[in-house]
């Protein structure tokens, strides 16, 4: 990616990580990917009451090239799936995906031929947000959790190590044990 990826681990990298995490989390620009009913709740979240602008996120970038976060809001049909993947590919790193609503997370109530049963069949998802549709407060909660993750994301070699650690932790999770909060990182 950038210079920050090539720094050797050490004090310098840790400080850069903190600054980079803070900067990235403070102005995440969502890509407008509102599809269906959840898009209306996304639209209300940008309204004056639940104000997305307080997170610096009101500048929803229509061009995926400048977007950081893709909020897949709504049901993804078979026809829309390649478009979704293309938009995701056009986003530049670092990028995150929130699948908003049950239709994006798992196909929702539409268990049929026309809907992709979960957008994680197509793009890697960071946060799954259930709800039909989720309230704006729920969406903001998921965005705040994503901000936590972004703040704690490591760079370069530390990142590779972090990914490996998290992967192993996840593989060890049985369905009955919930992840402890300190494990809930990227």
């Amino acid at each position, binding site marked *: 990616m950038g210079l920050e990826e090539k720094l050797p681990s050490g004090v310098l990298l840790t400080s850069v990580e903190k600054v980079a995490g803070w900067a990235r989390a403070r102005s995440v620009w969502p*890509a*407008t*990917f*509102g*599809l*269906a*009913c959840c*898009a*209306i*709740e996304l*639209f*209300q979240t*940008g*309204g*004056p*009451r639940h104000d997305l602008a307080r997170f610096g996120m009101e500048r*929803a970038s*229509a061009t*995926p090239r400048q977007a950081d976060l893709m909020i897949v809001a*709504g*049901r993804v*049909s*078979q*026809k*829309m799936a390649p*478009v979704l993947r293309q*938009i995701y590919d056009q986003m530049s790193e670092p990028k995150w995906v929130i699948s908003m609503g049950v239709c994006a997370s798992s196909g929702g*109530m*539409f*268990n*049929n*031929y*026309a*809907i992709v049963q979960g957008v994680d069949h197509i793009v890697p998802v960071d946060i799954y947000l259930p709800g*039909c*549709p989720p*309230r704006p407060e729920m969406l903001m909660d998921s965005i705040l959790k994503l901000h936590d993750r972004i703040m704690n994301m490591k760079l370069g070699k530390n990142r590779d190590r972090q990914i490996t650690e998290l992967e192993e932790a996840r593989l060890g999770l049985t369905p009955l044990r919930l992840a402890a909060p300190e494990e809930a990182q990227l």
Partner: protein
Amino acid sequence: MTQAQTPHAAAGASDAETTEGRVYTVSGEDWDEIVAAANEARDFESGERIVVNMGPQHPSTHGVLRLVLTLEGETVAEVRPAIGYLHTGIEKNMEYRTWTQGVTFCTRADYLAPLHNEAAYCLAVERLLGIEDKIPERAQIIRVLLLELNRITSHLGGIAPLGLELGATTMYTQGARLRERGLDLLELITGLRMNHAYIRPGGVVQDLPPGALEAVRAFLDTAPGLLQELRRLVDANPIFVGRNKGVAYLDLAACMALGVTGPMLRAAGLPWDLRKSQPYCGYETYEFDVPVTDSCDAYGRYEIRVAEIEQSMRIIGQCLDRLAARGSAGPDKDPVMIRDAKIGWPASLSLGPDGLGPSPEHIKHIMGQSMEALIHHFKLITEGFRVPAGQAYAAIEAPRGELGAHVVSDGGTRPYRVHLRDPSFNHLQSVAAMCEGGQVADLIPAVASIDPVMGGVDR
């Protein structure tokens, strides 16, 4: 082409065929003649016509609508809308659910006006059942109240993005602010902000909660002021007017040919409103006007939508008066669901110490007092009611136009076929008629003035 065959206005100008095509040599102030000649020659190889894809992911297309444009400079030569990016198979899914469960599916078609979808479907089912005149009066009043409230939120959900797409973000925040208050009311009454599944065949699922009437009155006190703030900002704004007046012209003949109803038809001068001409749910007993203009353009449609919001507030006031006059007589004297034990949804929910569940009176009744009630409860919840074979088409005046539900029954507990005739599906066909020959920038207010909801278009 030799020089003798193609005269040029200015001396020294010439043209010649080369390997790259026709090359014009211009020496003097004859640029207009050149361009005119090139246009006349329809010189497509020179790259004057470009095909642009306003793809399904676009901030201004009101959802996942794809417009394939053929542009000549700024002029739209052809526009082809492509839909289907939100096709959900709602109609097919409804064939695998009971009649009551079908409400939860059809409500997600036109997701800005979910109660209207439910109402159209329920009216069709009630017509098949033959219980159209047995729906309780209170249920009809509540239906009208919610339908009009939904009309307000739906129109605002169209007007606010119109502002956003034109770059007027304050219009968006104003509209979202007022819409939020409407959604608060819907949440208070139905429990959800969207996709309510509240209107069911036979009536509505629950009565109004305590405090609902006061909350709606409070809304009616403040909402007109907020709407006026929006209007003061926008109505005479020269940029808004300039972008919307005269844009997306669709006159009455075109509306008739293209099957256009709703605000678009009323903007063409025809005062056709199903609430007045083929009333349902008791609309003939309410006093309201049908706003009409004859400007046939995007600005006229915007004016009509705002006027309809005001009329809806009027109707809501009348509903409140009627409900207040009826008092709160309780579900036995003033039911909200039909009293037919083989159709009316039995479970009345109430909030107990452990959460939402069947009300204790209902449980006592079915477990201790009446075997028939238990049987009805069991059969209605597991299997649903049976609808005699036949077909029915019920149409209502949704915010976008005529929303119809064509329901076919084969006598069973599940619909045989449900087709929702969505107004936006028809109206999107008219994009070509409205926009070809205009400018690219006029596409945005044109599509916004149709106010399509792609969930209804694609279903």
